[in-house]
């Protein structure tokens, strides 16, 4: 079945993303889902560089490059300014990395969500501070190598459950999306902009450079993350109504982990432990979907 997406293209070639960049693919899908009138706020992240230096841009929508911790705050401000001018049509979108969302920008995001600002906050998640050279973030998964969690002592704790955090704010809409499922992602962007209040999208965007994988498999890895239930596709409405969008085959996590350089030090026991974590999270998500 051919994939059907809006035909308009609002991104230029010539940008500075590494070959096979998941975040570049994710941006294309976001722009396909957004209407004609949108403005992006981009706190410090890979896309601060990818989009090009002054006086250039790789995007056909207005962008504000902002400080690391201000994703939620700047978007709130732009929204207020537009509203003051009577422009309720233009969508205000924050496009932030996992570092700027899970860690450094969490307070301003939480503030915006608590005020239920009428914005769309999109976190493209490549699971570490990639732009500065692969430092561990709150989104880095258990067992991963980064320059701050070297193979001798890889990341010991679990990835922060940002979706639960956002759901706890009882915002109208929060959803996960993946670059391997473009129709699903575009639909979620379209649904988000049709709703009022704070909307949150968590987009899985593999980083071939930081994950130590060949560039050509970045979409395939994103797909495997869904198929192994490591990154399920689901939506949460009003913080409580859970809908799982795709019932994955449930491949073993090995399928995903064994292809990546950042996990190559993991032992059988490690993978078994990770499998148990994934199974537990999946069962929990299923239970939430049942209640909702």
């Amino acid at each position, binding site marked *: 079945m051919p994939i059907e997406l809006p035909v308009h293209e609002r991104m230029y070639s010539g940008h500075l993303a590494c070959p096979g960049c998941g975040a570049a693919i994710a941006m294309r899908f976001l722009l396909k889902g957004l209407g004609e009138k949108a403005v992006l706020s981009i706190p410090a992240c890979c896309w601060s560089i990818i989009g090009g230096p002054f006086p250039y841009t*790789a995007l056909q929508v207005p962008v504000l490059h902002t400080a690391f911790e201000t994703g939620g705050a700047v978007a709130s401000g732009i929204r207020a300014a537009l509203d003051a001018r009577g422009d309720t049509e233009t969508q205000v979108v924050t496009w932030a990395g996992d570092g700027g969302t899970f860690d450094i920008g969490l307070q301003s995001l939480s503030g915006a969500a608590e005020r239920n600002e009428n914005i769309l906050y999109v976190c493209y998640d490549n699971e570490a501070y990639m732009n500065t050279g692969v430092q561990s973030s709150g989104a880095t998964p258990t067992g991963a190598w980064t320059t701050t969690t070297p193979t001798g002592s890889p990341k010991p704790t679990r990835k922060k459950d940002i979706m639960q955090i956002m759901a706890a704010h009882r915002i109208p809409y929060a959803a996960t999306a993946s670059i391997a499922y473009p129709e699903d992602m575009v639909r979620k962007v379209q649904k988000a902009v049709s709703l009022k209040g704070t909307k949150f999208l968590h987009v899985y965007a593999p980083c071939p450079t930081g994950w130590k994988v060949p560039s050509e498999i970045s979409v395939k890895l994103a797909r495997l993350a869904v198929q192994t239930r490591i990154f399920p596709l689901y939506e949460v409405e009003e913080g409580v109504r859970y809908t799982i969008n795709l019932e994955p085959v449930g491949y073993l996590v090995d399928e995903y982990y064994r292809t990546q350089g950042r996990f190559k030090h993991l032992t059988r026991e490690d993978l078994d432990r990770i499998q148990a974590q994934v199974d537990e999270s999946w069962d929990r998500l299923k239970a939430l979907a049942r209640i909702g």
Partner: protein
Amino acid sequence: MSPVTFRSVRDLPPMSRSTDTMLWNRTGSWRFLRPRYQDKVAPCAEGCPAAEDIARIQILLGQGDFEAAWLRIREENPLPGVCGRVCYHPCETACNRGEYDDPVTVNSLERFLADHAWKLGLSPPPPEPAAGGGRVAVVGAGPAGLTAAYFLLRLGHEVDLFDAREEPGGLLRYGIPEYRLPLDALAWEVGLILNEGVRFHGNRRLGSDLTWDELSGYDAVFLAVGTWKPAPLGAEGEEHAQDGLTLLEAIRQGETPEVSGKVAVIGGGNTAMDVARSLLRLGAEPAVYYRRRLQDMPALPEEIQEAREEGIPFQTLLAPKRIEPLPQGGFRLVLTTMEILDEDEGGRPRAVPSGHPDVEVEVDAVVTAIGAGPSQGAPAEVTGEGLVAEGLHLKRIAPEGEWAARPPVLVGGDLVNDRKAVVTAIASGKEAALVIDTRLRGRDATSIWPSIRVGRKGGVSMNRYLSGDRAAQQDHVVRYDELNTIYFRFQERRERPRITLEERRTGFDEVKMRISASLALKESERCFHCGQCDQCDNCYLFCPDVSVLRDLRAGTREINYDYCKGCGVCVVECPRNAMILEEEPR
């Protein structure tokens, strides 16, 4: 697109605001791997002895361009309406979809395309005149001869097509029953070939009405007179048995043979099935007797299945020993009980007498259908020693003795093919046309052969011979594990509908019904289009660098190497392996 320059501080905007795009940045210079579109060979095309470009045919069909799809078949095979009915479809056996759920019903889609053209009265564009051709005699107007005549004419030769019988078609006309291949469907397709300028001469049997003196006046001869001579049964009293093929011919001539009551049909091939099922339709009670087991029968599984559905009993592991006339009329058929040994005998397991008691049945008639020898009039050289290999489905009479002075005589069809089938005969005819064309134009067939063969095991392609678009195909046969099957979903195989059992038992109406356009489109959707771009656009959608350029009107894709960084995502996400990632040339 050159970088923006500021000549002085005064040129700078009050805040750092973008004024131009990143398009000046030709990221193509980063690339060390280069993706490229590359059509490859689908396994069905390699499996087809006629080398039809099935994946491309399915793409055209799926786009609703039924006429183009039909013409695409006719580039390699002038008889899609025949093959869509009676072919043993090795394409489906090779189909990658078989590893996913079930193979695509290529055979019924082929018939759909031919029937569509027939219904609308479409005719192919006339052959373009080509200079420097010769005069060629084709002897035998069965599938091999018709195909050779068709291609020879298109290659610019004059063709005289001779046949022993009144009308062209050979086994298709006189051997295959109406309920499998209706005469009007055959006549339409044969007519398309003859109308292009092939001169047909009926009632010219080689050896009596057609002499080698006359044939020596041609530049080349293609001999494909088939195997109509009954093979001996090797049983006592075999003179009491009738020949199955003769019986089928009589029925095809419009006669109603006087065969009634219980009839023993001896054999396990398609002719045995045709005889038994025809007899059933004439009101007799046929039963099939075969020396091996059901699973060893050379007949098509669907023919066996349909015969059994129609209620014809099958008695296996029984070989005829004796036929005795009975005083009250009819015969006693004595059969030896056989058993199967774990040994190979000409591709089938060996059957030997088991030592168990003989079986006796009383029947009104015995009909044999156990294979046949070269037709009457075929020179003795065609039975082995006198032949030299010339192609995959083609031989040539060695130019020795009296043959040295004659024009080259190529031999094809059932006379030489190990697997005697319509599509292998068609392959013979095409190879004969190719070989004759190369000879008459002074080209070397052996050097051309490897480049026109589709896949390592496949047949030869006329499109490639004529430097058509298939010449650009990489000769790699796409395997199932080279596809990205995530982009496909399970879809039930749609078998073609058949008329009711009651209708089948009592008349010669075609058993398999034609399928509708909507059903054909649905079934065609199941095709993976292995190795061939069908413009699904995954390459475009997933490109992180917006470097796949589309021409939506022309339906073409192109990679913009100015910006492509060579990440290779497009190659991995191509569902059908129609792309390749190779080292960037330095």
